[in-house]
């Protein structure tokens, strides 16, 4: 140990060092003896001290999954790294090191107390993940920009901050500025901030802070709005009818359709297109509403099912618990009498009786479980039937509506073709008086070209509609099958767990009995 303290050699964190540190955890004599005897698992360690070790690189810490407190002060660490796995860390001390940049803390969401005192940090940043931060120590660093303080506004729980020994602490307005921009702060540079100071600061920076607040508010509102939209979209997606509450599908049909867009310049097509769009959107909307309604129906169905299953399981568990409790009562009595029993024959009969009791309990518990399994199977099957029916109905109806869309498209196509051909005739006759754009005019060279153009547009539209329909159907079906699968799987898991639990319990009881028997025989 002495070697560690006094050597100037940079050290690397290795297994040995960590073991030593763990072993030195403050324990009392007897416990330390035990710890040495058994060894301590790294993942059970809650706090670790690694100060004055001349460590240059943080390493080998991934075993300490449950670490709450880590001290790495007074080393020569240059880079924060290797802490990604310590997600439960609450307290981290990295003071008196050679760190230049704050980094590598993005996974430590539970961190409340962070000390980076006496390092070479010049900019506060990369702390966004530390939402629970309460104490931040950044004294004796190279921070020179006041703007760094505004960054700290996002930490709503921050109460203690130390920045003394930084270039900004020398500025005349430093205290005022910090107090004004961090109004929830209680301690600054190891001193309690008095209310008078707070008031003064508030008055002084009122305008700039108000502006800042306004901005923050705006961004927040924006964020909330976006989130709401996102949620709504999610909801629609869950109903498999996203983007059907408007002309989105229609627009997408024409988005890549160059021919169609060109044809829109023909006389009369515009009105036709408008009418078509209106009708199309109406159908889309009806699909959308129907989808939401069906989604609600499915949700209710699922909720009732879950509730009922839970109830059944609860009731069954209650019965099981009751049985076990009754058995246990009897059991403790039995054990006591067995211990006191001196007569061997008596003892044996009692043992036999007792083991019979255990078997009985086992049977009872297993019967209960079997019963539940049967009941649940029936219910699950019923639910499966119902939900599949629901989904099938939904798909069928949506397909019907989609067919209407297709009909509309066909109709539109015919009309368009008519117009196109008549226009072509007119063009050929030279009667066309309207001025069409050049590329549109290029289509009207012969019948094949124009028919082809209209045809491609039509095909594209149909493809879009088909795609949307396919997507809806496949997603709905996959959701349904996935749901049913999970339900089955969960039920199987539950059953296995319960059976395992029962076996375990019975084994334990049997073991206890056996050990008693053995000891008696030995005696």
């Amino acid at each position, binding site marked *: 140990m002495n070697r560690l303290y006094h050597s100037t050699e940079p050290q690397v964190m290795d297994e040995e060092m960590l073991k030593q540190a763990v072993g030195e955890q403050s324990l009392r004599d007897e416990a330390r003896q035990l710890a040495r005897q058994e060894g301590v698992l790294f993942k059970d360690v809650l706090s670790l001290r690694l100060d004055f070790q001349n460590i240059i690189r943080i390493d080998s810490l991934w075993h300490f999954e449950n670490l709450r407190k880590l001290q790495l002060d007074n080393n020569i660490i240059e880079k924060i790294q290797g802490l990604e796995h310590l997600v439960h860390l609450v307290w981290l001390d990295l003071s008196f090191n050679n760190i230049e940049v704050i980094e590598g803390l993005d996974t430590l969401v539970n961190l409340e107390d962070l000390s980076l005192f006496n390092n070479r940090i010049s900019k506060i940043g990369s702390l966004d993940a530390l939402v629970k931060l309460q104490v931040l120590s950044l004294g004796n660093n190279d921070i020179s920009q006041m703007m760094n303080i505004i960054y700290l506004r996002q930490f709503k729980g921050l109460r203690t901050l130390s920045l003394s020994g930084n270039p900004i602490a020398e500025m005349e307005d430093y205290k005022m500025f910090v107090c004004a921009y961090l109004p929830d702060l209680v301690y600054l540079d190891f001193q309690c901030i008095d209310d008078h100071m707070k008031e003064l600061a508030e008055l002084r920076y009122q305008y700039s802070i108000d502006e800042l607040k306004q901005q923050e508010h705006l961004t927040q509102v924006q964020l909330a709005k976006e989130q709401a939209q996102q949620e709504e979209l999610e909801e629609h997606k869950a109903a498999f009818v996203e983007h059907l509450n408007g002309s989105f599908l229609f627009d997408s049909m024409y988005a890549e359709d160059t021919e169609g867009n060109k044809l829109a310049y023909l006389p009369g097509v515009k009105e036709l297109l408008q009418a078509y769009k209106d009708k199309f959107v109406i159908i889309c909307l009806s699909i959308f509403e129907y989808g939401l309604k069906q989604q609600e129906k499915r949700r209710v169905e699922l909720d009732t099912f879950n509730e009922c299953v839970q*109830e059944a399981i609860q009731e069954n568990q209650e019965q099981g618990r009751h*049985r076990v409790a009754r058995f246990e009562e009897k059991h403790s009595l039995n054990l006591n009498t067995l211990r006191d029993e001196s007569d061997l024959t008596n003892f044996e009969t009692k043992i036999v009786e007792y083991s019979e009791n255990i078997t009985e309990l086992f049977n009872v518990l297993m019967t209960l479980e079997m019963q539940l399994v049967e009941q649940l199977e029936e219910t699950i099957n019923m639910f499966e039937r119902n939900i599949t029916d629901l989904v099938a109905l939904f798909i069928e109806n949506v397909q019907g509506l989609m067919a209407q869309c297709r009909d509309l498209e066909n109709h539109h196509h015919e009309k368009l073709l008519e117009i196109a051909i008549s226009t072509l005739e007119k063009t050929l006759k030279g009667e066309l008086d309207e001025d069409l754009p050049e590329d549109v005019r290029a289509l009207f060279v012969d019948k094949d070209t124009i028919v082809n153009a209209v045809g491609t547009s039509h095909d594209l539209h149909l493809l879009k509609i088909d795609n949307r329909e396919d997507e809806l159907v496949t997603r709905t079906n996959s959701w349904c099958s996935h749901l049913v699968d999970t339900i089955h799987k969960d039920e199987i898991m539950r059953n296995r767990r319960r059976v395992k639990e029962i076996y375990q319990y019975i084994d334990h009881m049997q073991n206890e009995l056996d050990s008693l028997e053995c000891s008696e025989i030995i005696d």
Partner: protein
Amino acid sequence: MEVLKETVEEEEAAEQEEAAVRAERSEKMTRPMEVRREEAPMTQEMLRDLEKKLSDIDMAIPEKPLTFTKDTIDISSLPLSYQSNTLKEEHLLQVVDNFSRQYIHLCPDRVPLFLHPPNECEVPKFVSTTIRPTLMPYPELYNWDTCAQFVSDFLSMVPLPDPLKPPPYLYSSTTVLKYQKGNCFDFSTLLCSMLLGAGYDAYCVNGYASQDMCQMDLTRDVCPLTVKHQEVVQEKEKVPPKKYAVKPPRDLTSRFEQEQETKKQKETKAEEERRLREEEAHLLDAEKAKTDPLHGLRVHSWVLVLSGKREVPESFFIDPFTARSYSTQDDHFLGIESLWNHKNYWINMQDCWNCCKDLVFDLGDPVRWEYLLLGTEKSHLSLTEEEEDGMNDDDDVEKLGEDEDKSFDMPPSWVEQIEISPEAFETRCPSGKKVIQYKRAKLEKWAPYLNSNGLVCRLTTYKDLECTETLEIKEWFQNRGDMLELRHINKSTGLNIDYFKPGHPQALRVHSYKSMQPETDRVMEFYDTARVDGLVKREETPQTMAEHYQGRSDFLTYRHVSFGDRVKKVALNSAESNSRPMVKITERFAHNPEKPAEEDVAERAFLLSEERVQLRYHCRDDHITASKREFLRRTEVDSKGNKVVMTPDVCVSFEVEPMEHTKKLLYQYETMMKLKNEEKLSRHQAWESELEVLEILKLREEEEEGHRLTISIYDTKRNKKSKEYREAMERVMHEEHLRQTEAQLDYLAPFLAQLPPNEKLTRWQAIRIKDDCLSDFQQRLIDKANLIQARFEKETQELQKKQQWYQENQVTLTAEEEDLYLSYCHQAMFRIRILEQRLNRHKELAPLKYLALEEKLYKDPRLVEFVKVFDTRPGALAKVARAGNLPHSQASVPHTPSR
């Protein structure tokens, strides 16, 4: 009256129909005389019966005069309205007499009406005017039940002089209240007055009732306090089975067997019921007293409350003696002659062969109820809708005509306002005590603060009808310092239960015990919110103590301690240390939601004698078994003599989901060390609980002996402190008053003294006195001014002398002398200035003072009549001027010498 004549025709028809029935009834009604004659030879038996009955009701009858006669009433102090009739009342009496004559003529077979009995001054008064509707100033007396209870408590019952006739007198309610006793008519008159005042539609009833009712004999009634409230178990509405509810497992038991079983059970149940019923019937037979020979003839008066006002949903009777309400169909009420309120008088024309069960209380129906006065508010004639619609118009017209002609207003009540003093209201029962005998129960009531231990009510329940074997006693207390509210003593089991109101120093709520000795069976319940440790209940038996907790931060809900036998040891310091050894401590905890279930201890048992600790953990939501752990604390020594810290067999554990770290010895060791500490704590707490029990018992004993009563700070009569304070305040006020009168000195006294005493002042004398007084005052003012002037001059002269002396000897003076001189000058100057100021002030104030005195003299009651007429005040102003024109010194104030 005409109305009566109108009804005569109708009645005749009805009469013929009912002739037979009526004859029967009249027979019954005239029977009392016959009864007496016929049963004359049986008097001995009758007498014995009567004697027995009288001995039964002995409790309710005051020892003093059995009859409440007018001899005992001091009529001299009664107001005039009691002693005479007004014109209107005379007129009313004539009307009533006329009515009565017609009534006797038309219904000769009915008993004469109870219309205008004489009052305490022998003046006949119509019964309706004896009712004086009064709303009592006590909020407790706003509802009918409390009103009735008050009347029944406040008055003691005097039986009617003749049980078969209405009383010969009807006293005013004020007299009845004053003497606190009365017969049933007094009771119902008072109660009716109060109920009418409170807005009820109440009537006094003159009728016939059962013997028990007339004699206020409750020995055959079950005490209302003993009737247990039947808990209405609200059945939960069955939730309709949900769509996916699982089917119940198939029932494999034989249905046939079940049926047989239920059949058998039914049979046994029926058998049991039959037996019970028989027993009951038997008991009833035994209880049923011999039938009353005067049944149906005993006159009684009670109160009828009709539905409609004050949200009374249904009409009912109130027996004023017992304050109980009865339905109008009750068996106790055998018939009604008439009823009245403060406005009118109605005679029952319906047949009472079936008690009051068939009576219709529709007072607007002239066939059923013959009214005495017309026009005063025809009581709600409840017609069916169509009838009303059809009849409304002509009815109104008729009414209008009638109203003008024949309406005769009831004169106002001759009775003085009914007043109950707060003291009387609080004392309630005459001399503060009342005893009521019920069937198998005795109820005693006391006024608050009458008993030094706060006892206000005691209910003794007996096993037998003769009331010899006590079953249980319930005692209610009020205003106890220890908040004791109710004590329930069960004589058969010897169990006492004390109930406390919130506020006991140890937050006690219920204490049930058999003896006050410690370490016996007892249960204490507490107001857990008032206690720091959240203790709800502590149950004790000689060997165990169980405590229930609620809302603790350590989630402890239950602790059970069993004690072993006390070790007999030589008493070294016997007082403290010889407590019972604890054998086992079991503690249960509620689930702490912040901890995972498998790490949260549900129950831990310290088997202290075996050095064993058993832990049972909470059960996880989806499990049916819970983890267990058992520690055996033995210190072992290995072969080398070293202490073995921990061996695997110290801890036997069963884990539902085995975890790696819990298998470690270190973990087990730490858990065990923690448990060791907790064991110590638990032992300590159990020991403290024992101490607390002792303390509470001691406290209870002290409280029982001391029984201090609390007195509200608003109770100025009883609260000594506030009484003292009030008296002190009064004294201060009195003294203040005295001082004020003293301050008004008599200016005229010396001048009046000069005149011969006991003679009226003449005007001349008065003016002279006034002038004398003024001139005297003026003289005084001038004297004072002169005095100040003289002093001023003297000071000035002295100063001048000194100055002269100084100027002469200025050269020879030493520094000291010069200083002395200077300081003298300074002081003299100061004195002169002050004198000058005083003089000036006096000059300013003197005329004002003079004027003030003059004013006062003018207003003086002794002089005012003489002076006022002749108020020129000659020379007054001149005198003032003279007083103001005081000699003023023109002597110049010498200048301060300067060096």
